[in-house]
């Protein structure tokens, strides 16, 4: 089974895999830079949204500044090809953290602030989770193809 998956993932040529990794990295750059700008430019509103969330509400100011700054740092890492592996892993971890928190909030029946801001402000929390899952899958694919290419080169 594992071999079959590996074969399937090795199916595209090294050049195609490289292009896929590039596209995944640029998609993350677009997502993170777009949402970071939105959060930074509406920092007051973003902070008040976080303040209403359970567990993290007390750290609203730190998170309101920290999350967009982290997104920008990850974007910069993703832009640099030699650091792309690190960037993809950081992006994956960040998306997993966001998604786990979203799933917890939805399943726990906590009060859900409805204004998330940014490109996904019009999505419901459930749609937001699926959106994140899509990006998690992209990050995993990017990491696998990036590793495959490096292994092939060695």
């Amino acid at each position, binding site marked *: 089974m594992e071999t079959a998956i590996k074969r399937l993932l090795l199916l595209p040529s090294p050049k195609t895999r490289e292009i896929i990794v*590039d596209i995944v*990295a*640029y998609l993350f*750059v*677009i*997502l993170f*830079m*777009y*949402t*970071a*700008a*939105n959060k930074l*430019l*509406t920092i*007051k*509103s*973003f902070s*008040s*949204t976080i303040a*209403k969330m359970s567990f993290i509400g007390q750290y609203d100011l730190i998170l309101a500044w920290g999350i967009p700054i982290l997104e920008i740092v990850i*974007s*910069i890492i*993703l*832009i*640099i*090809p*030699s650091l792309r592996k690190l960037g993809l892993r950081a992006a994956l971890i960040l998306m997993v953290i966001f998604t786990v928190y979203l799933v917890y909030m939805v399943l726990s029946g906590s*009060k*859900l*602030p*409805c*204004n998330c801001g*940014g*490109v996904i*402000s019009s999505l419901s*929390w459930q749609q937001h989770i699926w959106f994140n899952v899509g990006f998690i899958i992209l990050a995993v694919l990017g990491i696998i193809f990036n590793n495959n290419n490096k292994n092939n080169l060695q």
Partner: protein
Amino acid sequence: MNTLKKVTFGVLVAGIAFGVSAFTTLKPKSNIFNYYKTNLNYPDPKDPRGYFYYSSDRCEAGGKICCAHWDIGLNIAPTYDGQALAPTGVTYQLGSNVVGHFE
């Protein structure tokens, strides 16, 4: 693509994404403001009655209308929380209403 081209393209993509976001976020500052429907005796999102200005996010899940963007035209921009939306000379921004309810 060589490394330099990739970095250049990445910077370009990042700049465009940041710029587009900044443009769309800051654009409403001209004369479009977010008003909250706090008086549900007027449940129609397009009805200017029942809308009040709050600078921070005051929405919670559950409910049909929490807030919407309004172009206030020549009316004076809101300066403090709790200020009512002017009944005339204002234009509802289609599709801008956020579901939920005022906290």
